[in-house]
């Protein structure tokens, strides 16, 4: 019987050993598996590569419209009135890179908006009204987004591992305040008729030493917002006030907040340091007030080098905070190289 068999039992045993996975080392087995299914492995590798390289949210089966969109105003002035130096380009690049990494990490949308000086805004009545138009344009661009986070170019997200949900949206109730009773740099009236505070806020802004600060703010994609953006710029108000309103859209919003209940009831304030902390150079006349300034111990979320182009060194500040962010957020494997 045995002699009539085509294979010798010895060969059979050898083959068995070859495929006996238990006896072989892990690497050997893996290599063998890859060698056997080369094409499948290639496809898996390619798809993983694409996924990590572009971010999973960009791939068709996973892609969904982002719920939160970051709007980064870049190219401020655009070198129209003065030469744009190398350092300005460099700090802009750092700022963009910072937001791009943050948006990719948490699956947010990011849109860069060119804020170069344009002829249509050159009239003294229309200066600085770009912000409103950019916001409206972005709302048309991302109709399914829920929140927009506006960021000025000279901001830096210092804690990129913090998601906005965790840092802000889960604790808006405790973090924000509706009535500026404790901190009221503008001496706004605290109570005006017809304000219904039971409404959910749809605009979250911060106040610095000089009043409202629109360097970093959150605005909801809603009907109310669209109406606000429509009413915000009004020639009748602006004609009367354009000499006084130094900060343009900021001052206009302050005036609207002070007088119109429909705006006040949907506006809330966040502490400056929660999304808009200042370096010591800004608000320098209040240098002993800890409410304004970035604190390394507390790991404030965002630093805004507001007004650094007016007599301060933007590039130095950007470098300083950039390296600070690097040291705070060093990954463990970075120690090896």
């Amino acid at each position, binding site marked *: 019987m045995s002699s009539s068999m085509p294979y010798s039992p010895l060969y059979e045993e050898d083959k068995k050993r070859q495929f006996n996975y238990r006896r072989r080392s892990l690497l050997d087995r893996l290599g063998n598996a890859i060698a056997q299914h080369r094409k499948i492995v290639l496809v898996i590798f390619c798809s993983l590569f694409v996924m990590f390289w572009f971010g999973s949210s960009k791939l068709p089966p996973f892609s969904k419209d982002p719920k939160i969109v970051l709007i980064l105003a870049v190219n401020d002035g655009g070198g129209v009135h003065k030469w744009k130096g190398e350092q300005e380009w460099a700090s802009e690049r750092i700022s963009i890179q910072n937001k791009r990494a943050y948006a990719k990490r948490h699956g947010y949308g990011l849109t860069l908006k060119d804020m170069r000086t344009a002829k249509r805004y050159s009239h003294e009545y229309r200066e600085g009204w770009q912000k409103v138009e950019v916001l409206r344009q972005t709302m048309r661009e991302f109709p399914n987004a829920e929140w927009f986070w506006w960021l000025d170019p000279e901001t830096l997200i210092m804690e990129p591992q913090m998601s906005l949900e965790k840092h802000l949206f889960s604790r*808006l*109730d*405790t973090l*924000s305040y*509706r*009535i500026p009773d404790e901190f009221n740099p503008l001496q706004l009236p605290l*109570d005006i*008729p*017809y*304000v*219904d*505070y*039971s409404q959910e806020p749809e605009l979250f802004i911060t106040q610095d030493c000089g009043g409202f600060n629109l360097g970093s703010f959150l605005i909801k994609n809603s*009907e*109310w917002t*669209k*109406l606000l953006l*429509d*009413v915000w710029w*009004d*020639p*009748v*108000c602006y*004609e*009367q*006030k354009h000499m006084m309103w130094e900060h343009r859209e900021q001052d206009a919003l302050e*005036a*609207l907040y002070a*007088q*119109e*209940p*429909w*705006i006040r009831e949907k506006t809330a304030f966040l502490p400056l340091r929660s999304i808009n902390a200042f370096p010591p150079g800004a608000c320098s006349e209040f240098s002993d007030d800890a409410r304004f300034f970035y604190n390394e111990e507390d790991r404030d979320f965002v630093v805004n080098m507001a007004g650094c182009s007016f007599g301060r060194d933007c590039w130095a500040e950007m470098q300083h905070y950039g390296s600070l962010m690097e040291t705070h957020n060093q990954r463990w494997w970075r120690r090896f190289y």
Partner: protein
Amino acid sequence: MALRPKRKTGGGSQSFVERGTKGVKTLLVDSKRKRTQAFTFGCIAAVLTVVWMLQGYFTQKTYQDRFFPAIHGHYVTEISTTQPLIFPAIENAPMLKELNLRNLHTLRIDVEGNKKFVLKESDKPATEKELKEMTDKYEIVKHNYLDHGKLVYRKGSDSPEVVVVTLVDFDNYEVETLLHVVQNRVDYAQRHRYGVYTRWAQEFIPTINNQDLKESYEFLKPLMIRAAMHAFPRAKYFWFLDQDALIMRMDRSLQTQLLDQKILDLALLKNVPVVKDSNIKTYNHFVTERAEVIIPQTNEGRLDSSSFIFKSGIYSKALLDYLGDPLVRGYSWSSFSDSIAHALQWHPSFLAKTALVVPKTIASVYDPTKSTTEKAGIDDFHYIKGDFVASFEGCKARDSCAQDVELFYPLVQK
């Protein structure tokens, strides 16, 4: 036999309880080690419970717990009423005129010598006891006047759908005229179960900068409608009707006259310039369901600010707040209707919610030079017999407001 359930259905839970107690017993009795284990876990659980219960005291108080001022009008303390017809005691007009704003409100003089009336927001309504103790007639009238502004309609689920809003003036109008004007609104509202909201124009003077009533009367209208919206929070439509106008057809409800979707569609002016010679035209594809503001446009292409309707909503409130903003009001407008026209031309969001309608619907203007009975030769703008409203616009220039009201009041069709 093998398929028979092993446990009886009734005894199942009992045996489970028994087993549980047995387990606990063995745990407590069995060994010392197990007892200490149980004790340790018990302690940890107890501490965690206490911490969880006390955390409310240590963590920051939540946002909802903090105090927010309740929604209120110009006065912080208000008086609820279940009466949907809110109008002041018109018979006090002569006494109020005598008292004058000087005695009714506080006059504040600043360092530069500017005199200004101010409103005391914290003014408390007079209690019944206080009113009883008052002997001075003028004091009672003054309290009536001040407390009238605090009235708000609050009543269960029942609210009038339409509120007729009128702003009356005791300085420039005789008491007889005012009685007829207010009686006309009250009669109409009662018949159709609408609400009435009438206030003295003088009440609003302390809240604005230009305190000359004749100059500012028109600009008080947005403040007045906002006050009406606050006084009737669940009403849908607010029809502002000037004091120089009478409702001539008591039988016609505002729904059948204008508010009904089909009728509004017919009355709508599409693709016409917002005001004469304007480049901005009303939308061709206007959705009447979404209209929040209804304004008649006169024959000369002006917006008629003597009779118009605001529907409660965010756009109408925003437009009222915008028109009532001191900065907007303070601009050198030639008239209040110009400021509305500006809002519509510069802010497309408002224009998209504003229906311009033919004036015949709610604002037929009476022209003494034209016959009111002849059908032939009359346009669709001026009042003829059978029209819903007779508006005496321009009577101030003719100086005939009181006469016009007297002339038309007996002609009102019941």
